[in-house]
């Protein structure tokens, strides 16, 4: 008791003032005048829509990546009290008062600022000197392209932050591995690696590259662990399991959880509904769910249905027919059956309704009790409005001459009998006696006489077919393709036997009361698949560039332009940093190969410790640069300069690594090269200072030179910058970005 009176309570805090200073500088640098300009800048127009949709809880699909990044941005909007009411349609549009610009941009800016201390820590963990680490952090701090990218509502800085965090925590974990495995700190950093990796992947798929790199490095380290015969088999197994858990299981679980949150938050139907399957749409509030709510589940003889093609490409559409017939002769001279057209129509229409009829009976109403249609049953499909039967025969389809024409049969009393029997095949059945279910069942219609399969060809009919989509009977059905699958979307039990009454019935909206709930995994799989396969067709952009332009910085992007004052923002790199980063990479690769070949001949130019350091630091930095850069050469999508920023970050980290190596081992004493002790941690500071501080002022000066292009400046005709600013005027204005 009261012991503290005798002995004072002592709290010893060790604060690395370098780190504090860097963090503060980073924050100042990234957060200063954050809400300027109060206008939509470049891709904010793109991400902004999603933020708005999040605020309104409306479902969307974005093919550019997983939802975590958008969610983070939306979180900023949520904190700022954004209600989502802003029309994101034009770059340069002024924000209205309800848009909390500062808080929307805060998160990217914060993560961008934190990249600076992260860079410092990474180099320290790699066992480089604090001087080198400080240099790396400064280079990141003064890199204009990174500054520009962090100060706006964009995702690259968030991505870079998570990438660096993953690297740092892996390094921390690895350094703990040697002395204290399975301690709390060890677990913390290991798990943080996995979490940061999944966040990086969740922000943009680009994060996968770094994740793979880390997995490869961890794999290499584990392999050494297996070879360590001082460890027992059990402890090796424990080590491997722990890594598997933290680096594979945790990221996958995190990734799923992003989607879980995404799907939970967005529960209202919206503009992207059409892309998804009917079952998915029915799980959203409003939209299709309102229509399908409560309709009967089991399709029976006499059911009135609309049939949607499962593929949903080029546009989602429904099986359709109308009074008009196929032209007797097509433009290319081929003949047709001149029967009623059957098409696929991308809009809801009363002509999309079909009635399922039992070939053996005349009636078009559902009997009581209803007789459900099962897998393998033979049915006729009657077009509701015209009461004609879906038919196919050995006549070439209008645009796909190798397939059969599908028509609604008109009896011209010529020698062409009706062939209107179709076998229902439920593709996703669980047993062979499954009932055909609304929305859930994916069905193939196989023609009984010719075994042709009802299929959407994807081609648009010419003028006579009102540019609707062509439906064909595929004779030689090769495998299963979604274009041959159909599902019932709207459904009701037909009640009226009379044609007139039936027409009235068809026009009336459906009503009933069951809702279909899809499991999370089914929804996740579908959404993930759509994200990966959705393609944007128009890929040309004024500021798009090829990966080769990036290294030399032959390209820039005009982000924003003020029409009156002429102030503008450009994404452009610090040329000095980029050039020296390239030189550093080149020097590293050359030296590495040189050392490697010489070591193979048993000539060691540098001590073993230094060599290991050189390999691990280089493997991380050059490897990180390579995995984040080279894959772009194989991508076919539109690429921009900002795609290079993660790779650039790794390349920047390499500059101090190479500089310190050069000063320590090559520039010191000519005769010292063979047996130089490890000076890296203990060695005298002067040489390191020399190594870094000489180029440093130049780099910073170089940055200052570019600052105007990053921040903003009014374009005054007398000023020097006017040339740059004003020539951009015409182009930026009309650029369809």
């Amino acid at each position, binding site marked *: 008791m009261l012991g503290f009176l005798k002995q004072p309570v002592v709290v010893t805090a060790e604060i690395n003032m370098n780190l504090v200073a860097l963090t503060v500088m980073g924050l100042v640098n990234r957060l200063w005048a954050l809400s300027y300009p109060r206008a939509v800048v470049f891709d904010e127009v793109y991400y902004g829509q999603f933020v708005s949709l999040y605020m309104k809880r409306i479902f969307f699909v974005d093919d550019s990546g997983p939802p975590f990044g958008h969610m983070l941005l939306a979180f900023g909007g949520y904190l700022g009290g954004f209600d989502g009411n802003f029309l994101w349609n034009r770059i340069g549009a002024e924000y209205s008062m309800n848009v909390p610009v500062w808080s929307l941009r805060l998160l990217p800016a914060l993560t961008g600022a934190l990249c600076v201390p992260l860079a410092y820590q990474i180099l320290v963990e790699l066992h480089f000197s604090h001087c080198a680490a400080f240099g790396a952090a400064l280079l990141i701090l003064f890199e204009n392209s990174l500054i520009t990218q962090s100060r706006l509502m964009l995702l690259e800085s968030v991505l870079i932050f998570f990438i660096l965090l993953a690297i740092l925590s892996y390094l921390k974990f690895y350094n703990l591995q040697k002395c204290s495995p399975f301690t709390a700190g060890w677990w913390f950093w290991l798990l943080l690696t996995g979490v940061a990796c999944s966040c990086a992947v969740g922000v943009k798929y680009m994060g996968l590259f770094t994740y793979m790199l880390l997995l490869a490095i961890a794999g290499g380290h584990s*392999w050494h662990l*297996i*070879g360590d*015969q001082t460890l027992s*088999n059990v402890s*090796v197994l424990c080590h491997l399991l722990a890594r598997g858990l933290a680096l594979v299981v945790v990221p996958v679980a995190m990734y799923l959880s992003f989607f879980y949150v995404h799907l939970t938050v967005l529960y209202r139907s919206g503009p992207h509904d059409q892309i998804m399957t009917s079952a998915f749409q029915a799980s959203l509030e409003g939209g299709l769910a309102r229509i399908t709510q409560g309709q009967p589940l089991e399709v029976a003889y006499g059911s009135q249905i609309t049939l949607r093609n499962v*593929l949903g*490409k*080029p546009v989602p559409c429904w099986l359709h027919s109308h009074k008009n017939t196929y032209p007797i002769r097509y*433009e290319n001279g081929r003949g047709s059956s001149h029967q009623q057209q059957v098409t696929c129509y991308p809009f809801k229409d009363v002509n999309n309704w079909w009635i399922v009829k039992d070939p053996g009976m005349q009636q078009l109403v559902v009997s009581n009790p209803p007789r459900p249609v099962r897998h393998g049953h033979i049915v006729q499909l009657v077009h509701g409005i015209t009461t004609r039967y879906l038919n196919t025969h050995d006549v070439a389809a209008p645009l796909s001459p190798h397939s059969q024409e599908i028509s609604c049969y008109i009896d011209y009393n010529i020698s062409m009998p009706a062939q209107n029997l179709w076998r229902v095949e439920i593709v996703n059945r669980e047993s062979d006696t499954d009932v055909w279910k609304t929305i859930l069942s994916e069905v193939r219609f196989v023609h009984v006489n010719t075994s042709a399969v009802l*299929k*959407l*060809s*994807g081609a648009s009919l*010419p003028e006579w077919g009102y540019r609707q989509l062509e439906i064909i009977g595929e004779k*030689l059905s*090769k*495998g*299963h*393709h979604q*274009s041959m699958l159909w599902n019932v979307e709207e459904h009701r039990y037909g009640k009226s036997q009379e044609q007139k009454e039936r027409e009235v019935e068809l026009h009336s909206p459906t009503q009933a009361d069951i809702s279909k709930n899809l499991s999370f995994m089914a929804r996740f799989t579908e959404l993930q698949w759509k994200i990966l396969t959705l393609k944007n067709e*128009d890929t*040309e*952009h*004024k500021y798009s560039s090829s990966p080769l332009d990036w290294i030399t910085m032959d390209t820039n992007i005009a982000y924003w332009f003020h029409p009156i004052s002429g102030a503008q923002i450009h994404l452009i790199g610090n040329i000095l940093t980029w050039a020296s980063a390239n030189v550093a990479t080149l020097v590293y690769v050359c030296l590495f190969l040189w050392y490697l*070949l010489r070591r*193979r*001949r*048993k000539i060691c130019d540098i001590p073993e410790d230094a060599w290991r350091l050189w390999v691990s630091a280089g493997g991380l930095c050059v490897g990180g640069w390579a995995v984040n850069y080279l894959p772009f050469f*194989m991508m*076919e999508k539109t690429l921009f300069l900002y795609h290079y920023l993660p790779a650039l970050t790794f390349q920047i980290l390499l500059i101090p690594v190479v500089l310190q190596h050069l000063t320590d081992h090559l520039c010191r004493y000519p005769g010292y090269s063979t047996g130089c002790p490890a000076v890296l941690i203990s060695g005298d500071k002067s040489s390191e200072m020399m190594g870094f501080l000489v180029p440093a002022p130049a780099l910073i000066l170089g940055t200052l030179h570019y600052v105007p292009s990053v921040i903003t400046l009014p374009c005054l005709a007398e000023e020097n910058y006017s040339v740059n600013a004003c020539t951009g005027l015409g182009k930026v204005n009309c650029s*369809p970005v």
Partner: protein
Amino acid sequence: TLRRVRSVAFPTCLSLHPATSRGDALAPGAENYNSHDALRGNQTPLPAMPYGADSLSLDAVRGGARLPSGPRCGGLRQRRPRRPAGEPSRPSPPPRAWAPLEAPVGVWAPLASITLLSFASRFYRLCEPPHVCWDETHFGKMGSYYINRTFFFDVHPPLGKMLIGLAGYLSGYNGTFPFQKPGDRYGHHNYIGMRGFCAFLGSCLVPFAYLIVLELSKSLSAALLAASILIFDTGCITLSQYILLDPILMFFLMGAVLSMVKYNSCAVRPFSAPWWFWLSLTGVNLAGAIGVKFVGLFVVLLVGLNTVYDLWELLGDLSLSLVTLGKHLLARVFCLILLPLVLYTAQFAVHFAVLNKSGPGDGFFSSAFQSRLIGNNLHNVSVPEHLAYGSVITMKNLRMAGGYLHSHWHLYPEGVGARQQQVTAYLHKDLNNLWVIKKHDSNTDHLDPSCSVEFVRHGDVIRLEHKETSRNLHSHQHEAPMTRKHFQVTGYGINGTGDANDFWRIEVVGRKSGKRIKVLRSQIRLTHLATGCILGSSGKTLPKWGWEQVEVTCTPYVKETPNALWNVEDHINPKLPNISLDVLKPSFPEILLESHMVMIRGNSGLKPKENEVTSKPWHWPINYQGLRFSGVNETDYRVYLLGNPVVWWLNLVTIGLYLLMATCTIVAIKRGAQLTVEFKELSEVLLHSGGKIMLGWLLHYLPFFMMGRVLYFHHYFPAMLFSSMLTGITWDTLLKFCAGCLSCSMGKRVYTYGMLALMLLIVYSFYLFHPLSYGMVGPMASDPNSPMAGLRWLESWEF
């Protein structure tokens, strides 16, 4: 010690071959092998070697046995002689446990019999069906083109088709059969020569696989297993029986692997004659493989990686001086890089020399290229060299198959931009491709004799008047019909009178202002003066209203792409002197480069269409779906390319098994497990030899996942060859391993019966599925009367 005893006794229990019954096999040892040597009597004198002469002599014998006429070399992979004296050398190899299998006769007879079987299975019913099957329609046709010397375009390099053409020529085919579509009857035309050539090369695959596996695993039964898999695989048989590029490609591919393996075996005697022979043969085969299809690049990669590994090992050998290392490096550079390059270029030289007549492929190539071809309207013509005002010209787009700038009387339909006259790109020569160059500000007739000639210069502002319709090339800020972000290009004005939107600045790429513009040679860019956009062809096909010609737009995105560049092809100006275009003929390197660009773009242009069901790489190893070679209906003679499912599924399982075994072995070694000598040798075979083959499989399979082009089932067959060899090695190792773990007699039985069971399984499944390759007539498999009834194990098989 018990283990040791067992392993000494091992050999007797493991032999399959009748040689075991001979007493001498029971006591393995140097004397024994030497007695074999004495029996053979045709081996080379053995150099003195510092290690176990017993095994070397064995290898020499085997080398001699396998290739009676070829050079011989030691079969050992170890480079022990090169190790520094200070390093502890490994114990000399113990007598191989299963050595008696490999008695000389035991190598000869199986090789001869599998070769015989292979030829028999490939040549059986070769002339059936007597009509064009599947891709014969392409490759047979291209063979005919070589015989007729007509120029054509194909996405593959020329060697394969040249060889087909040569085979046809030698066998008396005169090149007159049109090969129009699959199913056409050959009639009196001699097609057997070409099919026989392909079947011959296809038959060689089996002995090649046998020799590769034997060399890698030193195990006769592994080699036999691999060979029998290939002999009895219906897919390999079918693919070898028709006029296709695949047998030729696979021949060179396996040839390259075989010679690579052989030269690796010769590593103990570098720079000896056999070493040089196999090394250069590898290079020759590599050139052949890429010369047939670009897929050959994968085997180049395999050989490349193997060579890098090889050099790395040599580099680590401190007993070799740097000079020796340099010699090693240079030898490989020469044989594996320079030699293939020279041969590859030579193929193209022959290709261009043979095909000197104009043909269906002209349009794909640039104007300069076409001037080489006899019969092309650019051949031996003479035109004025520099453009002048008043000249009548045609302009060709520089993108591949870009077409000529074209216009006609038809207007753009309602709703597609302004309703003015269409301007398109048209691939064929036509009067509507002619345009007249005029000054932008005057409408004078420059061809009037009183006018002096005025040349068009870089940077001039001009007007292009369509000769037939007298409308000006025009653009404005309406969206283009297909590429919505570009501007529409139209024909505008009457009799040459239009507006300011008809003015274009003509520029030559890489030229200073004021220079004249040359026909054919200058790459021209036309910039629209009012909007600053550039005239280009988007490459998209217009709908019916545009006669399915190619869209021409004005692009506001100022980029250096061939889409936006043009050259002047025809040039008519009576006031200028004509010069012969011969001076403009491109040099050989230029046409080589151009044909490669065209091939690469052609390959990447083979994209699957929307909604088309295509074969996916993951279908292939599971034999999910085959290819119809011939016949659809019940009455037709049907041939269906499908692998023998038992063999393929065995291969598939083996890949998993191999990965499992390799992982276990490698982890066990890494954890420092103590292995007996036999198991060490087994793991060596498994990891090194199996690893090489596995790498080959990966290199020939994985890249297809990244390809955007249309893929077919038959693309998997090169990988399947590797997979089959891997099966041989893996099962042999597994059975030997099991046998080694069991007691002697038990082990012997397990090994023998295991091998026999596998072989019987393969032969029986071939008996079941052979109609796939040799033709089926009668009802489909769903009918119980069909010969294939009950064999349609997967719903996706279409027979």
